[in-house]
């Protein structure tokens, strides 16, 4: 009897001990953050307010506005559609913004499902990226697989997009990048973890650009970052991004258009491989040979030509080769002459294949002496047209029957 009573007592004690949990948060109380946007704050009135409320407080270099897109639980249905709301708060640091936000929403923000981080052009150009990314890497709630984008203008505007299919904006933006296989001018996704690596290596890099006008977004082009200053230098246009994608061998699909006999021909890329070799005979002035190999189909034809004539095809292939060379050259020109930034990974290529040469150039590649701006880049393209479609002609010209 005595033993039994002791057992019961132990059992009751266990009930109390095992049911306790310090870290319990009900799912209704979690504010699931799907996307984040960061802008610079330019509100002077607000700064005066802070000065009045807490005079002795240490001030940061700038004030940021953090915008979180939160989902309303219970409205999520299949296919990523659901209702969301955006909350903004400002502060000297991101943590301060979050704290400020806690005073405005009932749910505490939960970042483990965050998909995208959009930074405004100004934030990027002022060189705030390294310090802002710190918390995205340091905090255990953050994933390294958050996708980073640079917005033209204000970043939070992009989160206000209203997709036609009622998708949640952040999820919508997150899935647009998956279309990179259809559009050559889209920069492939870059994750927070990737940027961590670039920043640690002092490498120059590019991020996808996002443009928004109220209801729609467009995700072509890219933003170029200088690895030494760690700030954004400028944007590459859609076409220049095409060249960048070709050089970096990250083409998944897309098309080229060339003019032939006064009208257009569309070439649909099936496979595009780029190989770069470096000639380091003169270590201070390495030469790069970029060889592009493209395979693809004749997609659409406006010009009056016979696609089953071998000469015509050779002619088209030559035109396409020139077109690819032109696109790539415009990109290298821009990066070498205007931006003076090696965002194409040529330095990395030297490091991997010619380590000794790289050791000499390392400090003066796209910084210091800027040897990068003086190196020669030679582009050769080789194009093959494999399929020509299912018809010979779609329409006839007069007297051509």
């Amino acid at each position, binding site marked *: 009897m005595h033993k039994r009573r002791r057992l019961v007592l132990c059992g009751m004690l266990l009930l109390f001990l095992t049911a306790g949990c*310090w*870290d319990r948060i009900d799912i209704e109380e979690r504010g699931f953050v799907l996307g984040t946007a960061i802008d610079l704050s330019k509100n002077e009135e607000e700064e005066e307010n802070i000065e009045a409320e807490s005079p002795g407080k240490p001030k940061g270099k700038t004030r940021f506005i953090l915008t979180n897109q939160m989902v309303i639980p219970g409205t999520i249905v299949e296919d990523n559609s659901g209702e969301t709301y955006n909350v903004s708060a400002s502060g000297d640091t991101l943590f301060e913004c979050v704290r400020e936000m806690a005073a405005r929403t009932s749910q505490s923000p939960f970042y483990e*499902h965050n998909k995208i981080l959009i930074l405004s052009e100004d934030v990027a150009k002022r060189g705030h990226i390294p310090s802002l990314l710190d918390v995205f890497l340091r905090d*255990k709630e953050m994933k*390294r697989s958050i996708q980073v984008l640079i917005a033209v203008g204000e970043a939070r505007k992009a989160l206000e997009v209203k997709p036609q299919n009622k998708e949640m904006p952040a999820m919508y933006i997150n899935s647009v990048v998956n279309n990179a296989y259809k559009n050559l001018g889209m920069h492939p996704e870059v994750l927070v973890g990737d940027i*961590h*690596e670039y920043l640690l*290596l002092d490498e120059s890099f590019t991020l996808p650009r996002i443009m928004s006008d109220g209801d729609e977004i467009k995700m072509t082009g890219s933003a170029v970052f200088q690895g030494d200053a760690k700030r954004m230098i400028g944007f590459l246009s859609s076409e220049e991004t095409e060249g960048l994608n070709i050089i970096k061998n990250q083409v998944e699909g897309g098309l080229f258009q060339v003019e032939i006999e006064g009208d257009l021909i569309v070439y649909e890329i099936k496979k595009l491989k780029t190989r770069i070799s470096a000639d380091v005979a003169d270590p201070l002035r390495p030469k790069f040979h970029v060889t592009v190999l493209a395979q693809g189909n004749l997609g659409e034809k406006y010009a009056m030509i016979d696609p089953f004539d071998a000469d015509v095809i050779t002619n088209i292939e030559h035109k396409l080769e020139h077109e690819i060379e032109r696109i790539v050259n415009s990109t290298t020109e821009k990066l070498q002459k205007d931006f003076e930034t090696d965002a194409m990974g040529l330095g*990395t290529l030297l490091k991997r294949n010619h380590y000794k040469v790289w050791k000499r150039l390392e400090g003066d590649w796209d910084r210091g002496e800027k040897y990068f701006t003086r190196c020669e880049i030679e582009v050769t393209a080789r194009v093959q047209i494999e399929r020509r479609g299912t018809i010979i002609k779609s329409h006839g010209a007069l007297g051509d029957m």
Partner: protein
Amino acid sequence: MKSFEHWDQDISPKMLGYAIVSMTIAVGILTLPRIITQNTQVFDGIISLMAGGVIALFFTYISAKLASRFPKQTFCAYAEKIASKYIAIVLTVVFALFFMLVTAFEVRMLANIAAKYLFDETPEEVISLTFFLVVIYAVSGKHVAILRLNLMFLPIFFAVLFSLLILNIQYLDLNHFTPFFTSSWRELLRGTFYAAANMIGLSIILFYVSFMRTPKKAPKAALIGALITICVNMIIFFFVVGQLGPVVTRNVLYPTIEMAKETKVPGEFFARFDAVFFTAWIMAIFNTTTMSLHVSTLAIDSLFKKMQKFRTILILAPIIFYVSMLPIDIIQIGLITEWLMGIGALMGMGVPALLYVAAILRKVKGNA
């Protein structure tokens, strides 16, 4: 029906192998990629891991040879035969203290990592106490039970680990492996030291072989066990560096966890694979902690003939728990790690090698 009384109390060679793998797979699989890349360049760490592995294998063989020379004898007993009574006592005490420190370290490490990634509010003390109580419970039973637990937990851990790695093949970036051979000799040697010292648990061989009915088979089983851990470490290193890149690996506290955090299961019906990995890893570290506490009680019991095992545990447990809570933060824990690696290398490699050489020179044998 067989009652529990008649359980086979002997350790089979297979169990010894499992014990060695379970003992050497611990905190190291989370931190080793970082430690190795901090000391070497790019992917050259794999050379260090290989060299360190060969060294560890050599001393595993020596330890097993030494212990199997004296069948059914405790470490204290055969150390006395080889050297002298005082040396035997001193060595046993040092081993006991060393394994107590290992227990304390594992308990604290588990609490620290769990607090960092899983529990925001729960104090580390509570996490470690809960864990440590279960460890004490396991050690209080028969010694065979602990070794049988290895047979059960280790396959689960490996299943989870390898599914994690398979899911991560898609993230491997071959560019992370070049350029080769850019580390200096000194860097490689430092890497080799850490790779070898990571196997600090190896000295359990000296204590567990005495439970074996066929000690002759011990060297082979021990070698296979150590080889498995070395291969696992190399595979993890390959995957972590391949995915995160050498510089990021160098700058992330627990690179293996970071890798697990990004794992996506195809079909997206299950987003958090790291939770599964954590569970499996806690099982692995549970085995390590249990065995190190067990070995320290074994060492102490061999000194005091009349000591009851449970009483030893009751005395040791509060001390270990107190020690485990002494370091304030991760920096101090890191310092202790360095110490542990140093002492571990000395005790797990130096001591058995010296004893073995002495045993051969003085022609001391178990049954003589």
